């Protein structure tokens, strides 16, 4: 037993070493997992598992929602939804000080509702909103910071690929997770809006008000956004109220977004081809990581590493909330080095047993949901923090004249808002849990 644990720990060290030398994370996990199983259980077991393990993983029904949501996101980026959303938000909010930036946040939130990806949200909304922010002479830091931060809403507002993966790892109900993410997502939007409002008051001239719109434009823009809201309402509302499961909901969503895009002439054959190939890249990458995570999980649980970690934490005498904060901090740090999905897949199998053993004054199912939302938020922070803030890279590639450091500075207030939000959600679990309680 002791020896198995040592082998498990050696495996972890090897994993980190491989990731550090640029080995794709999926292949690092596959290699360490496979070698580890071969060492602990014998090569024969590994070889016989490999006959069907990959197919078994790839054909999990609950996972099928992932490529569908990914596809929906990529079609949506080409269907002109982002333009509609921004136009409507701008008609309502644009006249205020900082209003154009606020519109970008609102539009990001709306887009996040049809797209489960931060980067896609950041890059699509960036293309639409950056020219407007420039036209109104917004400070570069505020403009790019807003868009990089707004992209995070793509993940925080369901549907969210990371959330699906989390639910599958800890065997939580995906629908409950989606419901639980709603209120925290809304709070994120409000906090981001408030951040902009405060920012433009503290830094005069950073976000001049836009033009007041005429009643006609307000009406037109609002009408134009209705199809998007309708699709979102159908997909997410249908899931929330139990009309359909996530996979059929996602399928209906893909179908409607594609149909809408084709009918209005925005989505042509070339766009579909683009969407399918991008989906191939993203989903292939995700599934390969999932396979690696499965192999790693078999190896690590046979080595007893997660259990040992849980026991160590339990016997450390730290109060549950201190442990929780430690784990969240660890996720923030690791999230700065790695993409969020790999992070969730790597860390949750070790972190969840630790949390599951502790008493937070709620049932185990509720702890699962609450911790999942917290973990989701903190791993996403890595997208807007140095050194590998991918959202910042994306926005930076759209606004080449703005130095990366300026964007990182612009993101800082939003980062602060996120920390406040995490603090709130940690202190008051009911914020996350009351909607699932209400709807269950």
């Amino acid at each position: 037993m002791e020896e198995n644990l040592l082998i498990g720990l050696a495996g972890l060290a090897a994993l980190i070493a491989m990731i550090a030398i640029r080995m794709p994370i999926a292949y690092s996990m596959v290699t360490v997992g496979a070698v580890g199983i071969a060492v602990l259980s014998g090569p024969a077991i590994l070889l016989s598992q490999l006959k069907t393990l990959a197919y078994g993983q790839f054909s999990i029904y609950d996972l099928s929602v992932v490529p569908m949501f990914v596809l929906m996101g990529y079609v949506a980026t080409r269907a002109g939804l982002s333009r509609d959303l921004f136009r409507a938000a701008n008609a309502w909010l644009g006249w205020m000080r900082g209003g154009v930036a606020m519109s970008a946040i609102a539009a990001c939130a709306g887009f996040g509702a049809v797209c489960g990806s931060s980067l896609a949200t950041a890059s699509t909304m960036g293309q639409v909103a950056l020219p407007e922010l420039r036209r109104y002479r917004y400070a570069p830091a505020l403009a790019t910071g807003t868009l990089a931060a707004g992209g995070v809403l793509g993940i925080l507002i369901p549907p969210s690929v990371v959330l699906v993966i989390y639910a599958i790892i800890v065997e939580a109900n995906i629908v409950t997770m989606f419901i639980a993410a709603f209120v925290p997502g809304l709070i994120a939007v409000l906090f981001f809006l408030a951040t902009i409002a405060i920012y433009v008051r503290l830094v005069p001239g950073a976000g001049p008000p836009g033009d007041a719109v005429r009643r006609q434009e307000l009406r037109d823009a609002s009408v134009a956004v209705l199809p998007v809201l309708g699709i979102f309402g159908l997909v997410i509302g249908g899931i929330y109220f139990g009309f359909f499961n996530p996979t059929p909901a996602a399928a209906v969503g893909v179908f409607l977004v594609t149909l809408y895009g084709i009918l209005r002439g925005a989505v042509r054959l070339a766009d579909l081809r683009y969407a399918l190939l991008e989906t191939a890249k993203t989903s292939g990458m995700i599934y390969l990581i999932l396979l690696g995570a499965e192999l790693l999980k078999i190896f690590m649980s046979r080595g007893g590493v997660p259990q040992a970690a849980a026991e160590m934490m339990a016997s450390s005498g730290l109060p549950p909330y201190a442990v929780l904060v430690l784990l969240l901090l660890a996720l923030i740090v690791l999230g700065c080095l790695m993409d969020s999905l790999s992070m969730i897949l790597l860390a949750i199998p070790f972190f969840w047993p630790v949390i599951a053993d502790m008493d937070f004054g709620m049932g185990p199912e509720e702890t699962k949901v609450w911790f999942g939302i917290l973990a989701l938020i903190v791993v996403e922070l890595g997208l807007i923090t140095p050194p590998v803030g991918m959202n910042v890279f994306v926005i930076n590639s759209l606004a080449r004249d703005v130095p990366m450091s300026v964007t990182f500075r612009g993101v800082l207030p939003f980062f602060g808002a996120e920390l406040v939000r995490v603090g709130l959600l940690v202190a008051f679990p009911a914020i996350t849990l009351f909607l699932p309680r209400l709807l269950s």
Partner: protein
Amino acid sequence: MPLRESQGAYRKVAHGIARLVEGWALAGGILLFGVVLVTAWSMGGNILFNQPVPGDFEIVEVAVAVAVFAFLPYCQLTGANVSADIFTAGASPRWIAGFSALAALVALVFAAVLFWRMSLGLQDYREYEELTMVYQFPLWVAFVPILVSLALLVLAALVTLVDACQGQPQRTARDQADRGGGA
């Protein structure tokens, strides 16, 4: 110049493989879209006429798995598999090409081993026929396109390996971000 000639021949082969891999991924994508249509149809039928497509979940499971395998070679070729490049950000291009070669080698071994094992898995499924519940669909049939995918993954890994050995590092997450892609 025999060296340059062999270079040119390799470029041609690599280009051919790339087109094949892209076409195969696209076929997988179309299959995925087909799953979307069947599922949406089933959903609509269920709501409107109380008549879903029977066993639609089975179609989803098998077809999505087949589609995802078809995506893997394309991921390998386009460098879509994310890596953490922060620790090696300061490394020289030579080292980075070396790391890329190592990564491609691992992908190659993975693809080859999985091809070997899953072809045995196919044989197992043929011997002790494993059928899906509703449609009585023999699962080994699904393994045929999957093995094609894995064979293409072997080829794709070979191309990335040769490229890396010639000093062309694999594209990284940062390049992906520059093109606005990734997850």
